[in-house]
């Protein structure tokens, strides 16, 4: 109820539409809405394959949009993910701490800064959609490893697969930060003084790793095929989450203070309690590694551990995972503070939680993703009339609005926002990201823009829609002419004479029909299956969990250590 009370009004206000990536996911969803079984999208990069991004959250948005439209469908799917998230945090925390502490952890998750940051500022639906599925799978993994039982095995397998179908990175890195600590806990855990035997542990671990690996390989087969044939070898693109947050405090604010909020005050407790209590040590280590990686370039850890991936991944997801791993500790801390200080503690914790959530939600106002957001309807209307959509276009100075424009227009662009999906050599060679923001990427960005304009004839690129006069000299000297103005002359349309109409590029990256059918069936099917298996009743041993020992203050008494 708390999650509904906090997040439903914000989502119904469509606050995530101000975020960085929300329109990007809506754009992908709009393609699935019209072409569920054809992942080849011609609206960006003169054609690109959507199998380069796991599809499930966007497919859910596409499906729900048939009832309520794309924008509201996105909000409803995000709301469902948040509700699932609270449940997932409770179930995950209950592995480590008492049910009461887990309840506090779940309540804290409603106000978690990193969750609100990703939902309202970053617009990372897949990450916030996959994490709850993953968290809900972990207790089944524990049950399977600890006691066996086919129900837990089936549920864990299907939920892990569903999580990967929503966001592959969550599963890949989650295995290290979440699953390894849970496996260690299963090994450490004693029931009636007995541990799981080592052969059973190894056999069960191998059984689930192999089957989950195989299931993910099949469900995301088109993704793996695309990745193997066209690995991401393009020049890395800078991202401020890799900055040193002390040397660049503005990014420290964005990627540390806002996501962590008051949770940062709990860091000493996490380190001390996580070290003191044996069964919490795996969780602490998982948290610590995720925490260090989430600090981006503040420490050399990300650069050394992730190597090239450090230049490809964005680091805020590690902070997100670190805060999820911290939540059981937060629940534990809340329990102890409330036991000791009663209402004073409850009020203080409430104020801190609400402040954290408020800062993260409002951060999109104080630090907007696109400070000059504007309506692209008139631009889309211009492209859609008088045969203008026979040619391709590129925007300059449109920021994150290019996803919205792509959703509204029939014309294709040579630009886009999905860097890993682009294959045009003019875009991958230099190290710039979106052409529309070329100047912000310095020389690489401008080199990339010049390269694509040089080949305008080849791509049928006739229109350049300009909302930033910075680029006017380039267009003028390269032979483009202003031909129209829109939106009270804030947008100038430049044209190049003699450009032939755009033709479909015969791209080798175009997935065959059978891959389109798989893409439209298996990932979404895995989610449906995940919902269905949750109706299988749990095993009776679950009730025995009530007798387990949980990490609390009494664990600190010398001589009673589990170790």
């Amino acid at each position: 109820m708390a999650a509904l009370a906090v997040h439903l009004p914000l989502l119904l206000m469509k606050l995530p539409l101000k975020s960085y990536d929300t329109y990007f996911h809506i754009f992908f969803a709009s393609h699935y809405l019209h072409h569920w079984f054809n992942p080849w999208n011609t609206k960006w990069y003169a054609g690109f394959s959507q199998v380069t991004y796991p599809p499930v959250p966007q497919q859910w948005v596409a499906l729900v949009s048939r009832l309520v439209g794309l924008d509201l469908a996105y909000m409803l799917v995000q709301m469902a993910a948040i509700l699932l998230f609270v449940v997932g945090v409770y179930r995950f925390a209950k592995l480590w701490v008492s049910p009461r502490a887990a309840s506090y952890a779940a309540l804290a998750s409603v106000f978690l800064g990193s969750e609100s940051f990703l939902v309202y500022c970053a617009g990372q639906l897949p990450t916030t959609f996959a994490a709850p599925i993953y968290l809900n799978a972990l207790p089944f993994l524990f049950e399977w490893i600890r006691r066996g039982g086919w129900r837990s095995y089936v549920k864990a397998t299907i939920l892990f697969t569903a999580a990967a179908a929503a966001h592959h990175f969550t599963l890949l890195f989650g295995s290290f930060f979440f699953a390894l600590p849970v496996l260690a806990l299963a090994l450490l855990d004693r029931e009636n003084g007995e541990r799981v035997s080592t052969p059973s542990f190894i056999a069960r671990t191998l059984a689930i790793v192999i089957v989950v690996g195989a299931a993910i390989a099949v469900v995301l087969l088109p993704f793996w095929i695309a990745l193997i044939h066209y690995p991401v070898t393009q020049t890395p693109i800078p991202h401020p989450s890799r900055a040193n947050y002390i040397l660049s405090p503005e990014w420290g604010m964005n990627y540390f203070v806002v996501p962590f909020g008051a949770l940062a005050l709990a860091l000493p407790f996490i380190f001390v309690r996580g070290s003191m209590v044996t069964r919490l040590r795996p969780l602490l280590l998982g948290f610590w590694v995720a925490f260090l990686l989430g600090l981006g370039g503040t420490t050399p850890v990300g650069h050394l551990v992730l190597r090239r991936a450090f230049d490809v991944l964005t680091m805020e997801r590690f902070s997100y995972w670190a805060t999820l791993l911290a939540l059981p500790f937060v629940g534990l801390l809340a329990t102890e503070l409330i036991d000791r200080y009663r209402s004073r503690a409850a009020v203080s914790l409430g104020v801190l939680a609400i402040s954290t959530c408020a800062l993260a939600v409002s951060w999109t106002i104080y630090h907007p993703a696109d400070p000059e957001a504007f309506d692209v309807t008139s631009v889309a209307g211009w492209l859609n009339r008088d045969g203008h959509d026979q040619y391709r276009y590129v925007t300059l100075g449109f920021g994150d609005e290019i996803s919205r424009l792509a959703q509204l227009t029939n014309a294709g662009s040579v630009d886009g926002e999905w860097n890993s999906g682009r294959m045009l050599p003019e875009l991958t060679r230099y190290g710039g990201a979106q052409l529309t923001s070329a100047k912000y990427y310095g020389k690489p960005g401008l080199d990339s823009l010049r390269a694509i304009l040089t080949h305008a004839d080849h791509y049928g690129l006739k229109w350049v829609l300009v909302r930033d006069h910075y680029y006017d000299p380039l267009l003028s000297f390269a032979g483009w002419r202003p031909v129209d103005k829109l939106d009270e002359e804030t947008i100038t349309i430049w044209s190049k004479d003699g450009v032939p109409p755009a033709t479909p590029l015969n791209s080798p990256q175009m997935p065959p029909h059978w891959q389109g059918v798989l893409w439209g069936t298996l990932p979404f099917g895995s989610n449906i299956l995940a919902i269905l298996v949750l109706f299988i009743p749990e095993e009776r041993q679950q009730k025995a969990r009530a007798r387990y020992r949980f990490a609390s203050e009494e664990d600190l008494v010398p001589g009673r250590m589990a170790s």
Partner: protein
Amino acid sequence: MRKGALLAGALGAATVALVAIGTIWPVPEAVAYAGGQSLMPKSSTPEAAVRNLGDEIVLQAWDKAYDSLANKAEFTEQEFVGDIKGYYPNLRSYSDVDHIEVFPLHASANDGDVQLKLYWSTVVGEPVTTRNLHVVRNGDRWQVEWPLVKKTIVPPQVIPVNYLRWDVIYRGAGDDWGAQDVEAPHVRIVDMHPVQRAEGVVVLGELLNEDVVPAYVSVTATLLGKDQAPLATEGSFDKICHLLLPKQVTPFLISFPDASLSDVRSIRMTPFSTLVPASADPVIEIDSAKLNPAPDASLTGQLINQSGQVVNVAHVLGTFYDSTGHVVWVADQYVDHALLPQTPEPFDIHIPEDLARKVSSQRTVVASYVAGGAL
């Protein structure tokens, strides 16, 4: 208990140590975002003082950069910024400093000279600003004396405007862009010459507007292989003057990176022209053009804006001929200062060493960009 305390202490200490290491010796990605800065001691040498100033210019931290100057009392911060970015909108207004280089020239106990090179990332051209800076010791730190170039003030005057202008009346609102009632202006390639260079094949030549109306022009070249199959197609992009008044000639240069002339049997040239409205204004005079021999062969001279309006960006295209009058090279330069009325602005176009010996004459044309141009 002791083991737990030890672990907590170790993790906490490791975290603090890693943050300290990452801040004192930041990883390259973090350095880039901090504008080349770290927590290392600052301005302890003349070179460090200039480097810090350069980093602040890269970050556009004008307040900090201005405050760090030894002679800031001699000018305002606005003048300092204007000296770097340009007092009038120009090429550097459409640019940011991409990176810097610092070269110590001379140093003594109390002062020194250091050269600062600012490499701009611009939409066109690749300008580099070089400044020789005097650095003085002030207590335990060094400070730069910025050699400010004062703003050029154009004296009040009346400039008569008397130029040709061509207007075009189109069919109507329903026209497709580019579809016109009139025949395209007649243009002709008067010279064409492929050259093999280290970076690939270059096709250069000249295009003439034979018509009595202005023309928007471009040239596309297609390399054909031994079997007459197309190998590559490229356009002239900005290595051409796209607007040609009647009887005007423009050079063009088309690059085919990584191509080899030995694979090419023939070249298909496709000139394109369309009628556009145009005016002869602004008129830019090329004064004192001079070919300088190798080494460091170049074409130098100065541009004088004869009109009454400011020309924000000028593009100088030089065509170089051998003794028989054939084009041997085409080179260009974007002038990074605005052209004020009647105010000379120098240009310097580099000529490749190996071609400089063949050059016996040149012809220079100028294309210009004026902010807020006509639609």
